[in-house]
């Protein structure tokens, strides 16, 4: 049996001519899109309170009072949903030595010379950055968010602490939106990526180009059983 080091048990080469590889099962995809919807609701409602010029966004949720009420609950929903993602993806998102080489040669990634870079497993350093950026920022937003959830935790922290919590919450929110923009941009710029989260599969060429160690391992794992 081939050791499974760079792939999930559910990852699989599902077709040989042309090669097609399953990257995410339906559960992961639903989990992802639910998290994404929560994120967008949180981003829009949060922006409404972040800058007066964006206060009009509260109209999307039925006014200021409803937005104020809704935002923290969606935050809890996102946290739970993200935790689901986290436990599915974390072990392949540990930073490895080849990630540092990849990062040092990021220019080759942008100019399309991935042949000069080390072969990668299921995730590259950019994807891992999004993963860990989301993780740490969601953690910060959750903790500070509960501190400022006035309706249910009015006396959890002192006023001085809550001031700092609100400040950290705003800064973390801006940072996580930047990570979100990076995430969407990278998914669109790297053609052929989006279908991993819609259909659940990617092409062999995509896998060979970006995650060759992952593809190689999947093929080795399927050595004993024909993939068709």
């Amino acid at each position, binding site marked *: 049996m081939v050791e499974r080091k760079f792939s999930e048990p559910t990852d699989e080469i599902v077709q040989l001519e042309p090669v097609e590889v399953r990257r995410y099962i339906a559960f992961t995809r639903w989990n992802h899109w639910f998290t994404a919807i929560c994120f967008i609701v949180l981003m829009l409602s949060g922006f409404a309170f972040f800058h007066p010029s964006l206060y009009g966004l*509260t109209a999307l949720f039925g006014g200021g009072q409803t937005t104020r009420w809704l935002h923290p609950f969606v935050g809890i929903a996102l946290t739970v949903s993200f935790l689901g993602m986290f436990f599915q993806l974390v072990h392949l998102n540990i930073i490895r030595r080849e990630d540092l080489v990849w990062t040092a040669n990021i220019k080759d990634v942008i100019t399309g010379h991935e042949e000069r870079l080390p072969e990668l497993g299921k995730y590259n350093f950019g994807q891992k950055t999004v993963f860990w950026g989301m993780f740490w920022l969601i953690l910060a937003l959750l903790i500070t968010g509960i501190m400022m959830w006035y309706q249910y935790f009015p006396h959890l922290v002192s006023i001085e602490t809550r001031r700092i919590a609100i400040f950290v919450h705003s800064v973390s929110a*801006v940072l996580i939106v930047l990570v979100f923009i990076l995430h969407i941009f990278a998914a669109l710029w*790297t053609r052929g990526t989006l279908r991993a989260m819609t259909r659940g599969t990617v092409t*062999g060429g995509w896998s060979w180009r970006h995650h060759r*160690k992952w*593809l190689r391992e999947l093929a080795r794992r399927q050595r004993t059983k024909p993939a068709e």
Partner: protein
Amino acid sequence: MTIAPNMDSPRTATANPPTHPVPPNLGQAHVVRSSAGGPVAENPQPLTEVAKLIDVSKCIGCKACQSACIEWNDTQPEVGVNVGVYENPHDLTPEMFTLMRFTEYDNPDTGDFEWLIRKDGCMHCAEPGCLKACPAPGAIVQYSNGIVDFIHENCIGCGYCVSGCPFNIPRISQKTHVAQKCTLCSDRVAVGQGPACAKACPTHAITFGTKEDMTALAAERVEDLKSRGYDNAGLYDPAGVGGTHVMYVLHHNDKPQIYDGLPEDPKISDVVRNWKGPAKPVGIAAVGLAAIGAAAMALFHRGNSVSQEDEAEARELVQEELRGAPVERPHDKGSA
């Protein structure tokens, strides 16, 4: 004595109300500041600045002011419980806008035991921290006479004003989900009457009038207190918040914190200033630039596409691996 009809602000709380109709002021035309970029009057009608002066040395702790406040504002607080202290209720609440705070002070200089009673409530700062922190346009306004008022129909109940206030005054109602605090009886002042608490005060410890008159009255009181041995008597009108429209005469103005934690140098917290100052434009700019940059690169950069060669290579690799004869390839550098 009644208030002359042509006066823009009442000069006293003790006078009888005007006998003929007075057009109410303190409307949109008098708004000089409004939270979160809410509407302010273009040419705000200037009103004479008003102030409430609370002479702590004259207060007997009768709580008539609290009763008058409850009655006028019709807040109907629940009957409290006695836990062995004089404060009742035990803190400001959404239904109690003003509170007598009692302190037993053992004066180390004189050996005297002093009973300090301070009427707590909104100070109506010239630079209100609540207004700065508020995210809802027009939920907190400041009128040209200095009164800071919460406009409940615009309030969203987030509690940011609680974090913004240097005096710990606003309270959020769990029933109506709006912030509550002393209005300085803006609805009375608007029609020529002084605040209910000042009207009810039996010892004239609470007086009301123009800020100028109240400052002058305070000076008299401070002089009197000094002649009675209170060398540190003074007026509490803290400059850190631009002065206030509720002021105290304190017999120990050098130690305001002994009056149940009255802050010595209140000002809007630097954290709140940074959050409501640079963080907003910098944050919006960072997000905006990132979004525009990403969109521009998506439009003008050809993107990273998978080629037919890549597909062919993939087929080859998969076939090789499936056959179980992996061949080390020259471009395998860095792989495990």
